[in-house]
C-alpha cells in the first residue's frame, strides 16, 4: 500500500546529489531538443502561428462539414460533400494555400450539431462549413467568419395539418433536432406564449426529423426556414409539405473557426469580403438557391433585401 506521505518522503531522495549529475544532463538534453524543435518549426512556419502554423506544418487542412444541410453542406449523388458553404470554404482554402505558399491536402470530416463545436474547440477541424448560426454564447468557445446567410426558425408541416403558426402546436407533436438553435427557439416560444400540451420528440438530425414527420409520428418539424425548403426538395412527395409561420428566431450563418486566432480568420474574411465586393457571391448564391442542384430540385429562394444588404455591408475594402 503506497500512501500519499510515501511520495512526499521519496521525492527528495530522487533529487539527491548522486543523481544530480544525471538530472543535469537530462535537462540539457531536453533543452537541446526543445531548441532544435523550436528552430525547426520556426524555419517551417515563419511568421505563422496558431492554426495557420499547424496547417503549414502538416500540409493538411481539415474541413468539418454537415451531411444533410441542403444546400449548404450535404452529401451529393457522388458521395462527396457539396453545397454553398462548401464552395465558400474551398475559396477560403485557396486563399490559405496562397497565403502559405503551398498546396494543401484537404481532409473532410463529417460533423453533427453536437460535435461541431467541440471539434473546432479541440482543434480537430480547422474550419466548419455547414449551416451554423453565429451567436454570442457559442463565441465563448469558437469564432466565426463574416455572415454568409441569414435565416430564422420556421415550422414544416404536412398540408392540411391545421398548423399555421407556432400557437397552433397546442395538443400537437413536433420533432426538434437536439443541439440546434431552433430547438431552443421553439421551446422558448412554447414557454413564453404558454402553449399547452405540446409533445416534443428529440431527433438526431434533419433526416430523422423528416422521417418522423413522414411517418406521422409528429405533426411538425422545425429548423431554419431555408433548410426546411431543402428538406422538402429532398422528400419523396414534395407537394405534401409546407413551411408555415413567422420567423421565431434570427439566425445568421457563418463559417466557424477556432477561437483566439485572428490570423486564420483574417484570411477567410479577406476571401469572403472579396466575393462580396466582386458580386461573385451572387453567382455562387444563384448556383445553390436558384437553380437545380445535384440530388434535389431547385429551391428557388431569392436572395432578398436583408441578405443583399448583409453582403454589401461586409464587402470591406482591401
Amino acid at each position: 500500500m503506497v500512501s500519499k506521505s510515501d511520495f512526499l518522503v521519496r521525492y527528495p531522495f530522487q533529487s539527491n546529489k548522486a543523481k544530480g549529475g544525471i538530472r543535469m544532463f537530462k535537462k540539457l538534453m531536453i533543452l537541446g531538443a526543445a531548441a532544435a524543435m523550436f528552430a525547426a518549426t520556426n524555419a517551417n512556419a515563419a511568421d505563422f502561428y496558431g492554426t495557420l502554423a499547424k496547417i503549414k506544418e502538416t500540409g493538411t487542412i481539415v474541413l468539418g462539414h454537415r451531411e444533410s444541410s441542403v444546400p449548404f453542406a450535404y452529401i451529393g449523388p457522388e458521395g462527396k460533400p457539396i453545397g454553398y458553404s462548401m464552395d465558400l470554404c474551398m475559396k477560403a482554402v485557396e486563399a490559405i494555400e496562397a497565403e502559405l505558399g503551398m498546396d494543401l491536402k484537404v481532409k473532410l470530416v463529417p460533423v453533427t450539431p453536437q460535435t461541431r463545436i467541440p471539434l473546432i474547440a479541440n482543434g480537430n477541424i480547422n474550419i466548419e462549413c455547414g449551416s451554423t448560426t453565429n451567436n454570442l454564447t457559442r463565441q465563448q468557445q469558437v469564432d466565426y467568419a463574416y455572415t454568409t446567410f441569414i435565416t430564422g426558425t420556421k415550422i414544416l408541416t404536412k398540408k392540411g395539418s391545421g398548423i399555421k403558426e407556432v400557437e397552433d402546436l397546442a395538443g400537437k407533436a413536433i420533432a426538434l433536432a437536439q443541439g440546434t438553435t431552433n430547438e431552443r427557439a421553439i421551446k422558448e416560444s412554447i414557454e413564453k406564449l404558454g402553449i399547452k400540451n405540446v409533445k416534443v420528440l428529440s431527433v438526431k438530425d434533419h433526416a430523422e426529423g423528416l422521417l418522423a414527420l413522414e411517418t406521422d409520428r409528429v405533426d411538425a418539424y422545425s429548423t431554419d426556414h431555408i433548410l426546411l425548403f431543402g428538406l422538402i426538395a429532398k422528400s419523396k412527395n414534395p407537394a405534401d409539405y409546407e413551411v408555415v409561420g413567422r420567423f421565431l428566431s434570427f439566425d445568421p450563418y457563418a463559417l466557424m473557426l477556432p477561437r483566439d486566432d485572428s490570423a486564420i480568420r483574417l484570411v477567410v474574411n479577406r476571401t469572403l469580403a472579396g466575393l462580396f465586393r466582386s458580386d461573385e457571391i451572387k453567382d455562387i448564391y444563384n448556383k445553390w438557391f436558384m437553380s437545380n442542384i445535384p440530388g434535389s430540385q431547385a429551391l428557388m429562394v431569392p436572395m432578398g433585401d436583408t441578405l443583399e444588404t448583409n453582403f454589401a455591408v461586409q464587402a470591406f475594402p482591401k
Partner: protein
Amino acid sequence: MNYNWNWAILIEVPYFDWLVSGLGWTLLVSALGWIIAFSLGSLIGVIRTLPSKPLRLFGMAYVELFRNVPLLVQMFIWFYVLPELVGEDLGRWMKRDMPFPEATSAILCLGTYTASRVAEQVRAGIESIPRGQSMAGYAMGLTTKQVYRYLLIPVGYRIIVPPMTSEFLTIFKNSSLALTIGVAEVLYQARQIENYTFQGFEAFTAATLIYLVITMIVVFITDRVEAKARIPGYGVQGKT
C-alpha cells in the same frame, strides 16, 4: 486547446436538475429493461435446454436474432419501423397515444436484447451441471418439470451469478443508446447541457462519473449476492 473551463455549470440551475432527471430515466429504463431481460431470458434459456426439439429451435432462433443485430439498429427498428408494420390503427396508437413512446420502445428493446444474452448464461449454467444429476433425478421418478424445479434451476442460477453481474452492468451502459430515439437519459442530458452552454467537456465528465458510480454500486451489491449464492465445491472460488 482553446477551451473555457467552467465546472460550476454542473451545479447551476437548471443544468443540475437535468442531470438528476437524466439519472432517473437511466435507472428506470435499465431497471424495467432488466426485469424483462431476466424473466424472458430465463424462459428462453430454459427452453434451449429442454428435450423438445421445436422448442429448442425456437429458443435458438430468438437468441441468434436478438443477439446478432446491433443494439442501435434494434432501437431504430422498435421506434421507427415497428409502428409501420403493425397496421394503421395500432401503429398510430404506438406513435401518438402510447405513454412515453420513446422510453417504452427503449425498455422493450433493451429488455429483449439483453434477454438473448441472459438466455445464453442460463443455458450455460444448466448445461454445466453434470448429466448424471438430471439422470439421477429421472431415475428417482421425477418429471422433467421437477428435475428443472428442484435440480437444474436452483444449482444453475447459483453458478451463473458472476456472468449475470456483467449483463446487469451492461444494461445500464447500453441504456445510453436510448438517447438516439429521444429518451432523456443521462447522456442525452449531458448533450443538452452542452447545447445550451457549450461546456461539453464538463457535461460529459459528469455523465461519465454518474455511470461509474451507478456501476460501482451495482458491483458492490452483486458482490454480496455472489458471496451468498456461491455453492461450495462449484466453480473457481470453490476449488476442493
